[in-house]
């Protein structure tokens, strides 16, 4: 197993980086990433670039695999989008393997989380990707945490696609350190200050030029002397 990884490192280091012969190793590595819930965007983007350079070697199911893995890295990396830059229409994009995922990714990016979960169920191969759903939930919880001060357990359950009463949901709430009150309400941020504080916008980067009072006095004096 580590042989493949070492070979991939060598390829990414420049050895036959853009040779079609490297594809086999990189694709094997992709299988490993899938099975072991690991992720290497650089290797996967290289596969897509090789497909672009040698379209005769393009494999639809591999493209799909890469895109599914990239869904798990929606934020902050935007990996799905990075993959899309390498997938021109006609030859690569206009096939259900890809368009289905583009729609899924758009749902995540526009925060239509309910829609995401209901669509996801239509694609068993995506659902079966180890670790994917957990990663997507982490992303969603991140968005929820920046937006909400408090919300109901039901609302959260819809966002993360877990039944309200499930133990998994409770675990997720615990994992993020959110406080659950007796009425089923979740407190996301605790202090009042945190929420209503004024935003002080500091001048940054623009204050390189400074002028000392002394200099200012000279300038003002000379302004005064000209009349």
């Amino acid at each position, binding site marked *: 197993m580590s042989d493949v990884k070492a070979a991939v490192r060598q390829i990414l280091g420049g050895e036959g980086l853009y040779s079609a012969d490297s594809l086999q190793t990189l694709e094997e590595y992709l299988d490993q990433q899938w099975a072991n819930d690991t992720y290497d965007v650089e290797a996967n983007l290289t596969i897509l670039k090789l497909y672009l350079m040698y379209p005769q070697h393009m494999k639809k199911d591999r493209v799909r695999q890469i895109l599914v893995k990239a869904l798990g890295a929606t934020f902050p990396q935007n990996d799905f*989008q990075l993959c899309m830059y390498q997938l021109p229409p006609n030859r690569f994009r206009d096939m259900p393997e890809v368009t289905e995922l583009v729609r899924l990714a758009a749902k995540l990016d526009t925060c239509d989380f309910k829609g995401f979960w209901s669509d996801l169920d239509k694609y068993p191969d995506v659902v079966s990707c180890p670790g994917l759903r957990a990663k997507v939930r982490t992303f969603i919880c991140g968005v929820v945490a920046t937006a909400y001060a408090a919300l109901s357990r039901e609302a959260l359950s819809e966002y993360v696609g877990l039944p309200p009463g499930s133990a998994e949901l409770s675990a997720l709430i615990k994992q993020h350190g959110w406080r659950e009150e007796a009425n089923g309400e979740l407190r996301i941020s605790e202090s009042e200050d945190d929420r209503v504080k004024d935003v002080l916008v500091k001048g940054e980067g623009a204050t390189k030029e400074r002028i000392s009072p002394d200099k200012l006095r000279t300038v003002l004096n000379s302004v005064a002397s000209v009349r």
Partner: protein
Amino acid sequence: MADIDPPLTNGAPSSRLPPGTKWADVERDAPADVEADDEEETPYTRVRGERQASSHRVGGGGGGRGDPPPQVQSFLRNFYEDVEGRKVGNIENAYEGQFPRLSDQYYSKTRWVDPSSVSRYYADQGFEKEKDVVLILYKELFYRHLHTVGGPESAVRVRVEDREDSWGNYRDLFDYFLEVEMEKKPGRGARGLQFPYTWTFDMLDEFVYQWSQFKFFHNKTSQGRSKRSDDDGRIRFREMVALADRHIWDSARVIEYLQLLVNKSGINQYFRHNRERARGDDRIETDLGLQVGYFAIVQLLRVQCLVGDYRLALQQLDEFDFSGDSLFYRVPNCHLSLFYYMGFSYMMLRRYTDAVRVFSQVLTFLHTKKDDYLQGTAMGHLLKMKDRMYQLLLLCVCLHPHRLDESINMYLKDKHADRHARLLKDDEQEYIDVFNYASPKFVHPGYPPFDDMDDYDPTELSRTQVEVFLEEVRHQKLVPTIRSFAKLYTAIPIQKLASLMEKNEDEIREILLCVKHKGRQLVWRSGPPLSGEVVTMEEGVDFFLDHEMIHVKSTKIHHNYVQYFVHSIHTFKDMIRSVEHGLQRRERV
């Protein structure tokens, strides 16, 4: 990499001419510039041919017939002697002064003296010692000049053979760098070659440019010829396939060459070494190998950006030296390219804060330097690049509001106020226009799919870049609406906002979450350009949700008046100074 030609030492430039040919014969034997490689253009090629012929008769100042003008001959002679004698100052003069001047004077509408004639000329003069290297350098100038003057509007055509020969010449040049210059140990053996920094940068820059030009030409011509079903069309199509078979300007090799130059030069180790010490090492000032490696990094950034791999583009800069005495400050073209491609990559990675930082940095620098910093042969190109950066900056701040430096704000208000207004109105066509104008010309890294040309589209990769970018624009479509509503309220129930915006509550919740989601991004702090930490946007209106209620955070913006006053004080000071100056002069009179 397995496929580098043997070192150039034996590879005398191909001479199509029998020995003893005179300059005059060379001119006559040289193939006509007219070549019908684009069938559609045939009507024009005839006209072009006539123009070409007449320019030969008139002689373009004597360049057409007989020996090249004496000044050109002496240029060629001095060029050899200066390279052989390692006279950097003279080489700089030749490159930045004489060559452009002679080009304007004698070769503004024709090719320079054919390299094979130059080769024979050197042989006649008994210049043999480093003839091969000098000829490679001459050809570098020759093909660069040809690519500058040649084009559909011009009497000069860049022929397929020219492209192929120039590719071979760059390989010779890089092999020379790799196998001779980078093998040299300090203090031992022959002195290494020295070029002005601009030329070293230009060589690598031109290499990538000609690759992109070949790709455009090859993809387009292949597509055009694949549509023809007559015998001639098939033969011409096969010519295109043959170019691919011979790996002419093959993207993989272009990247591999650049990578090899970076790796073998040891430039990244040099950067690391310098970072770890308080006092920098300035070996790069005299070491051609390191300079080549340095500029090759900038070109790798560019190539990866041109093929749409923005992550890998920025990754090239992991070790790069951005300190004040870095080489790019001495080569304006390098400076602008570096920041342009870097900023563009950040923008495509949706790291708008970083893109704005990078563009602002170079644009404020240019603002303080005024335009004489950009003076030189490439000035037009650099001014255009500068304007592109302003427009990209505009895109970034429309997608992600950000405070700009005062000087940039003023420029944008002055030059692009309409554009800015249209972008803020969320005019999608405007986004497309700005993007198409300001983005680099993307290059499809592959050869066309020769077996299946039916739905081949040579512009597919650039279309993809626009489309993926627009996707982002569309996802952000309602963000400004939300912000403007948020300005009006301190608290508003989701239900009420929904009825105001004529949406259902679920949709409103999505949009609100999306605004928050888009307000966060990775922002660089220090170290490799790809690194960063998640930062929440400070600019504009902020809000949070409490169940079904939207609370708007009261935002007090503390304006930076210092900037304004400093600017005004400077202006006054200048005015007073010039008034006083005027008064003094009058008194003296």
